[in-house]
């Protein structure tokens, strides 16, 4: 399973990388949506991207919209992982094409639970 972790916080990327490699996933990182699009274009398809919302340059919502507009990435699942927790924000992200939504702070159980919901557990 290949997972792309997109977050401008290196600490969060590290935490997610550790949780995901522990369950055998292959993890790549990007520090914002723009970098993430470059990584996606340059490498084998990802099964899932974990997407922070607020990031410099290209934010998470823009990343989700861009990915969903490109049929090449149709097989990639997207999960927001963010401190944004208002109803309208969850709505906006799902309407834009995110498959799941995880609110920060989170622990390993929450991440693994969401992977299970995405059929990637």
């Amino acid at each position, binding site marked *: 399973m290949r997972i792309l972790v997109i977050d401008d916080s290196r600490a969060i990327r590290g935490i997610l990388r550790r949780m995901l490699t522990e369950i055998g996933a292959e993890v790549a990182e990007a520090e914002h949506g723009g970098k993430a699009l470059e990584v996606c274009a340059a490498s084998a398809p990802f099964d899932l991207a974990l997407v922070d919302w607020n990031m410099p340059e290209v934010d998470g919502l823009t990343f989700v919209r861009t990915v969903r507009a490109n049929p090449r990435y149709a097989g990639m699942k997207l999960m927001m992982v963010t401190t944004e927790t208002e109803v309208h924000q969850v709505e906006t992200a*799902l309407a834009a094409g995110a498959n799941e*939504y995880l*609110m920060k702070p*989170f622990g390993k159980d929450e991440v693994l639970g969401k992977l299970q919901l995405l059929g990637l557990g």
Partner: protein
Amino acid sequence: MTLAVSDFEHICRVVREESGIVLEAGKEYLVEARLAPVLRERNLASYAELAAELRTKPRGPLTVAVVEAMTTNETTFFRDVTPFEVLRTKVLPELFAARPNGPLTLWSAACSSGQEAYSVAMMLRENFDDASRARVEIIGTDIDAKVLARAREGRYSQIEVNRGLPAAYLLRYFAKDGMHWVLREDVRRQVEFRAMNFVGEWRGAPFADVILLRNVLIYFDQPTRQRIVSRMERQLNRGGYLMLGSTESLQDVDTRFDRVELGRGVVYRLPG
């Protein structure tokens, strides 16, 4: 503050008598951690004082508080996912067909703060028509009045809704209230919560078509598990199903249940 051996043993005895929960030697740290808040709430100076009050007032409110503190209430929405898939794709369709008009009762036994029962209520709304859904009565029971009160409120923290609940369901079935999320009234209304102790009188125990008895037998010794499972046989309507937690089985109990593999899950069926 330390816990003397004789006090630890007395507390364990009380908890076991009242709830069946077995606390083995070596669990002193757990008892200390769980009872520290009870000491504070009740202005008790030490574990010795707490144990003394348990001895002088064996059926008092302190006993209830101690038992509630010693229950492990950990749960999540759609815990383990598979059992809810099995319910949706196999068990419920079969029971709906077998009882074309009658009501169906699903019992979340040891329901904790309600996530298991409400997961079923949401799953019904997502997958079955209104008429079928309305035929299902969901009952949740637990020994712990504190978690039952929370279950009835249907009010969950951000951490709780992060665990196992699909985001789409969060939007459809919950309203945000400050830092909490509150389950919609009509979903709440489908579930009735009652206090019931597996080692007590079983007053209020429903007769059910499906019993979820998940992640609770692990706390009891074998004779207690045997008694509970035998009693569950009598609470289940013919052809009904018992479902256990993903790490549990009926291996060491005598029972009439047939072990049936359905899809990716295991259920126990009472012969019809």
